[in-house]
Structures are given as C-alpha cells and as structure tokens.
C-alpha cells in the first residue's frame, strides 16, 4: 500500500495582499487557486475551473519546493483521517494556507499529532505568525523533516454518520399517510408507503436515504412534504444519491402553510427547461435552465447548485410581488430536492408568505401538498 507523503513547507510568499514583488508568479497562482475556491463557494465548479485550480496548485507546489522550507511531513491518509474525524477546520485538506490562516491550521493539526510532532508544529506556527509566512503542502516521494504521526481511524468514512433519532422515527411509524395526490396510481401509492418506511428507518439509524433509483421524484417530494409537516422537532434526513454522492441532510422543520393562496399574482412554472417541451404552452417559464443543471458533476453538487439558484430566484420572484408559485414538477431528483431545499432555506431565512403548489404528472396534472410559511 502506497503511503502518499505531503511535505509541509514554510513559504515566505509573496502571498496575495502583501504588495511585494512577485518574480516567479507565486502570488498569481495562489490568487488563481483562491479565485476557484471562491467560485466553488457559490456553486459547483465546471471542469475548466477544476483544471485551472489543479494547474495553479501544481505551480504553487513547484515554487514552494524551490523556495520553501520543510517543516515536517505527514501522509495524505492522515489528513483524510483528520477530515473524517469531524474536528477538522474548514480547508483542512487544502493544498496551501495563506499567512492569516496558516498558524491556526498548524495549531489545529498539532492537536492531532502524536509525540514530538505537536511541539514542532506549534513552534512552526509561532515562527510563521512572526514572519507572516504561509504554508504549502507538496506531495513528495520521500519525507523531509520529521514524519508526523497521527492516529489512524480504523476506517476512514467519507461522511460523518448522522445522528440516530429514534424518537422522530417513532412519530413517523405512528402515522399512515393517505397519499391523496396518488389516489389514481396504485404503484405510486405503494412506492410512497415503501419510501415512508425507508424514511423512518433512515431517521432512526442516522443512515442516508437512497435517492434516485427507487421512488419517483413526485413520491419523494410528497413524502418529504408530509414528513416536514409531522415532524414535531428539528430533524433532518441524510440523502445519498445513486452516484454515491451525499448531499447535505434534508431539513424537516415544522412547515405548514398558513395561507394556501398567497395574495398577489401567481407564477406557473415547469421545473427544468428542455426536458418536456410539450409542457411549454402550459407554463409561464421554467425554474431551472437545463444547460446549467445538466453539467458534469455529482448529484449532490447539482442538488447544492439548484438550492442556491432557488434561493436567488425566490428573492427575485417575491420582490416582484409573486406570492404563489405553481410548480409543474418533472423528474431529475437532484433538481427536485435542490428546489425544495432552497425553498425551505429561503422561507426559514425570510419568513415570507409565499406558497409553492406542486403539481405532479400522474396521468395528467395532480395537485400535491403545498409548501410555504
């Protein structure tokens, strides 16, 4: 088994904002990498963005190997373990840390390190702070400086386990929803009952709910809506898409619309353009542009993108006086879940009196349970 090593390099810079001359372009490549990270905070990156980030990081590492000073070496596996432990700071596994963040990162790392390593990192953190230096992690075939020893978890799990919530799960088991929107479709009712059981089990054990291969998008949305209404305490359900990516847990707050028909004009939209063109005449527009949603990324990333888009668009729609959105809901689960996730996020933040009325296509449009404050 190959233990990939990373050398922690004390890097004088010039770091962005220092105003120092930049003869080898170090500051430029750090700026380029940080720009991509900033973009990532606003939504998933395109392949081109990822390539730019990769190229910038390779250049950062190369320059740092030439001009930096080795502090210590650790394994990539150790960083993974640290990240998976749940106690790691943001950017724990980043490839570089500018002077304003480097000492804190080193100190956080020093708390994980066994033996002498902690003291070495603490001293390095003080030195970095005094000199306004940063840190770069460079892959290396051999260790340079002391090799840091960190505890290895028995199994590095990608996602921290959710919190088991048997109390919330028992509430789910006591209720037998009638699934009125699916009265005309026995397969959908059966799928909804099956999903309801899965939902209760997922909440009880803290395990993720698999999404995308089993229940259809309309069944999923309706089940989450019913779950949101009966939850008597803050709960959430983990979502695992079929591509293996895990989205943020889906929040299940108490959410019953007080006003079913918001005052003001309504907006009737389809979920995503260019998928069911026969619907074009029935809707005023589409909530998501297919071109922006259907790009090469994981379903969890698409879910996050759709949630961010929804928050942005809801603000626009609400400020234009719209109080009711009729959503003709079609497939693609990450977009569906992203929409409702964004809706819940926006409703919670703003407390606005907006109602979303979903319509499912079950042998013709069928109204689902409305969502709103």
């Amino acid at each position, binding site marked *: *088994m*190959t*233990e*990939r090593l*990373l050398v922690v390099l004390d890097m004088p810079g010039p770091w962005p904002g220092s105003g120092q001359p930049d003869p080898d372009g170090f500051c430029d490549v750090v700026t380029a990498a940080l720009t*991509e*990270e900033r973009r*990532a905070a606003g939504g998933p*990156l395109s*392949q081109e963005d*990822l*390539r730019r*980030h*990769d190229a910038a*990081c*390779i250049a950062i*590492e*190369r320059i740092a*190997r*030439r001009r930096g000073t080795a502090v210590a070496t650790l394994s*990539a*596996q150790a*960083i*993974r373990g640290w*990240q998976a432990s749940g106690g790691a700071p943001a950017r724990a*596994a*980043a*490839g*570089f840390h500018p002077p304003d963040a480097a000492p804190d990162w080193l100190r956080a790392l020093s708390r994980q390190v066994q033996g002498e390593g902690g003291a070495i990192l603490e001293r390095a953190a003080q030195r970095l702070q005094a000199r306004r230096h940063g840190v770069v*992690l460079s*892959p*290396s*075939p*051999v260790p340079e400086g002391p090799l840091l020893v960190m505890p290895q978890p028995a199994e*590095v799990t*990608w996602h921290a386990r959710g919190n088991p919530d048997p109390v919330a799960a028992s509430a789910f088991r006591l209720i037998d929803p009638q699934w009125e929107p699916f009265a005309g479709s026995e*397969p*959908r009712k*059966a*799928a909804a009952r099956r999903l309801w059981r899965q939902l209760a089990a997922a909440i009880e054990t803290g395990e993720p709910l698999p999404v*995308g*291969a*089993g*229940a*259809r998008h309309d069944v999923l949305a309706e089940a989450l809506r019913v779950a949101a209404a009966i939850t008597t305490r803050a709960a959430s359900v983990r979502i695992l898409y*079929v*591509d*293996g*990516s895990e989205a943020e847990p889906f929040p299940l707050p108490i959410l019953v619309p007080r006003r079913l028909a918001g005052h003001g004009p309504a907006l009737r939209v389809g979920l995503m353009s260019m998928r069911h063109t026969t619907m074009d005449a029935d809707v005023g527009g589409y909530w998501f542009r297919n071109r922006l949603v259907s790009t*090469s*990324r*994981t*379903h969890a990333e698409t879910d996050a993108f759709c949630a961010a888009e929804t928050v942005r668009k809801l603000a626009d729609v609400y400020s234009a006086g719209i109080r009711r959105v009729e959503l003709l809901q079609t*497939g693609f689960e990450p977009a569906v879940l992203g929409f409702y996730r964004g809706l819940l996020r926006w409703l919670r933040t703003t407390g606005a009196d907006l109602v979303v009325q979903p319509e499912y296509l079950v042998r013709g449009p069928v109204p689902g349970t409305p969502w709103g404050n």
Partner: protein
Amino acid sequence: MAGPPAPGERIRAFADVYGLALPPAWQHWCEEQGWLEQPDEGWELLGLLPAPSGMDAAAMLAGMRLANREVPGGFPADLIPVERLPERQLACLKLDGSDDPPVVLIDLDDPGGWADAQLAADRFSEFAAEFTEQANALREAMGFLRHAQRAVRTGKRAAGQAPRPDDWRAYRFCSQNVVIAIIVLRHNRDDNVLDVGACLVTALSRLAQDAPARAVCTLLLAESYRAGGDLSLRFLQGTRPGAGHVPVPWPIARWAARCGADIDRSSGMVPADAARRLFIESIQVGDHLRRRLRSDSVRAEAAAICYGMASGLWAPAEVEVALGWSAHPGRLLRGVTDPLDRACFSADLLDVRSALLVASLVRRVAAGPGGQARLDVEDAAQPVDLIVGDDETCIVQAAVIELADWSLGPRVIPSAGRVRLAVADAEPDQLRPAIDEAVARVRGYAADVRAVLCPRDLLAVERSLRDRLVAEAARADVYLLAAPEYTPGLTIQAADKLSRARTARQ
C-alpha cells in the same frame, strides 16, 4: 408455432432406416409436435414432419451424411441435426444412450471439431424449452420495435429522442459481425430493479462457452448500475404493463450456476447479491484481479469497480494497481475526493498516474515484440499477467517481454518472460528521490529482471543527472524504463478519469 404430431410409423421408419435407437425424450417430442417455428425470423426446431421451410430432421440427416461422405469418418453417426443455425452451424442431438440426450453445436466448416463439439444444452428437453423461450423473446422484441416505430411514425415520439433509463429500449449487442444478444430493458423506478422484457442470447460454437452469457450479464448489470439500481434483474414476458415474469434465460442461468451465483431460474429474478457475484465473474479480467474483486475488502465497491471497467473508464490493469497500491482504492476508483481538497486529491492523482503508467506498460507488452500496438483487447498479440503486490511492486508476465525501446542508457533491458516492476512517478524536480525509492523497492528481488518505470520526463532531465540515475540503478542491477507519457499529460488523464468516475452513475 408448432407443427402437427409426427405419425408413429414415420418415427419408427426413420429409426429403422438409419439404425438408430431414438432417445425417448426426442421421440416423445416428435409425437407431440412435428416441428417448432419462430414466425418473425423463421427459426425452426426440426422434428420428423417437414417444417414450413420444407426441412425435417430426417432430410437434414440424409443431406449431412451425403454431403460429408468425403470427410474422413463421414458425418458422425451419433448426431441427428435438429436446428440450422447461422454461419453454417448446426445444433444436433448427440445420441449417448441416455433418454434425454445432450444437444451440441457443430461448425460445418470445421469437421475436425465435430468429435469435440460444444455443448449447447445438457438435455434435449432443455434445448427445446430454450428454443421456445428465445422464440417468445424474439417475438416480444420485434413487437416492441414495431410499437416504437409506430410511435415515431405517428409523431408520439421524436425519432432522435434518446430514451431515459426508465423508458423501455432495445439493444442489439454485437461483436464485430456477430449479434451476441438482443435485449429489451428498462430501469423500473417503482421496484428499483432492471426489468428485462426480452433477452435473446446467441449460441455459436466459435465463441467460447458462456462467452455470450457473460457479455450479456456484463451489459445488463452495467446498465442496472448506471441507472442507479441495486443490480437486481427481473425477467418479464414483454413490455406491456402488468407483464408476468418468465424464468431467467437458460444461458444466463447456466452461467450463473457455473460461477456460483445463487439464483432460482423459475423466479425470473436475479437478486442483488447474486447479481454482484455475477458481475464480478462476468467482467473480463484476469484471475488475480477477479480474486481481489471477490474479497470482502472491496465488497462495497465491487459493483462500482466492475462498472468502471465495463464502461471503459478503468482498464483492468489500472484497477489491479489501484487495489494493490492505493490506501483507499474504493474511494479512488469512484473519484470521491473533492478536487479542492488538494492535499488528498494530489495523492489520488499520483495513485492514478501510477496505475496509468503500469497499464501503459501492460498494453505495450500485450502488443508483443515489435507489435504495432492497436491495443484493443481483441488486438492483443499475447496475454499478459499482472500481479500487483502490497509492497508497491508488481510482476508482469508474458511469453515475451521486449521493452528495449523503453530502456534508458547503454544497458538495455533483456527480453524476458517476467519482470518485477516499481513505479517512480513524481513531478520532474522530484524524480531523483522517487527513482531512488523505487529502486530500493525492487532491489531485493534478485531472481527477477527488475525495472523501474518512470514518466517520459526522465528524458528531459539534465543529461549528467540522467546518466547518474541510470548508472546508480545499474549498480543495483535495475533497469530504468521511460513510458511514452509525460507528467502533464498523465495528470490531465488522471484528473479526467477521477472526474468521470465521480459522475459515472447518472
């Protein structure tokens, strides 16, 4: 469609003329139906009454014996032709004295192979049942196609509209000019299972036994994985709503039984656990890699890894290296690491780059000495065994390993059948320590030809340094090899593979 029963006197006359003791199972079948026909394509299972084509088993046997009287030994006396197949092949009863004898496939252009003909079915009754199954499946497939064509003609469906995973769709699965299978399938969202509405699997003597079934299993299970299913399969009688299940097709059931996947043919289901086993056994990899895939340590990722190979994303050699050398092969092969987590992602890139380099060498060896490497699997000039050890070395074995054109320095790697290999992959400014480390890893294997494989960048380092590296390796009796790939290209390839692995399943 079945013909009328053959009269008893006709059956007895046939037996008397040829001096045959007819097996009771076939005799009984002939007494019940003179022949069977698949109306869409005109396949015929011959009995002792003329089928719609005018042919029957007696006429066919007479023709075979007459046409092959010049062949040494003539047409085998223990064979009775019962079905004409494409590509001048015949399915024949093999009279072995049993009540329900086996059916074998023979190639009319290869009389030398008649004595050792490929088994098509253990019993005639099974063969007849399979004929009926396949005839029904073809009828369902043709019916589905006619329905789809009608939908396009009447404007219900756009001609160029790609079906979604949960739409029924038909595949004709070919290898070169041979149709291996015809399949109609969809992913059933309600039950999270891959529904197979029709499944015909070819049986040709020139193909290895079970090869078509393996290919079909790979296709079905890859499709099931891609669509998000748990790999389970359900065989149905057509695509109509409420269609009942049919037994698992015989070729798949036989293959499953041979590879130890536990399925109940009559249930029409291949459950998820058996399907995973079937996927591992069906995928085209060497024994060593298959053993790794069977192990519990990759159980959770086995389907993803098999899909990665079936879809062409990962070469088997790349998977073998990843499983042997990566600290977290499952995550690596699924591309789980966030590229912005550079500390971890750079390690993944190095793991994939090592795998790419070894796979490149395996392809080169497979092309054979001086091979013009058109390196599809089918174009490989020689088989190559790759055994990846846990000590970051691997063994490459083939009839002839000729890598002189990859050698550096005056000392050319000798032609051998087995090479012990380590990889020195790092950025150009780190090559020296990487090579030192790699040389140290292979140094102990004195019985083997030992080599260290580097990216092409080694040729671009300063001449004196390169000479020194070659000389130091030579002192340890290790050869340095330069692969055709340069580091930047390797990095782009590796990042691209990881990105595709992340988004493979949608």
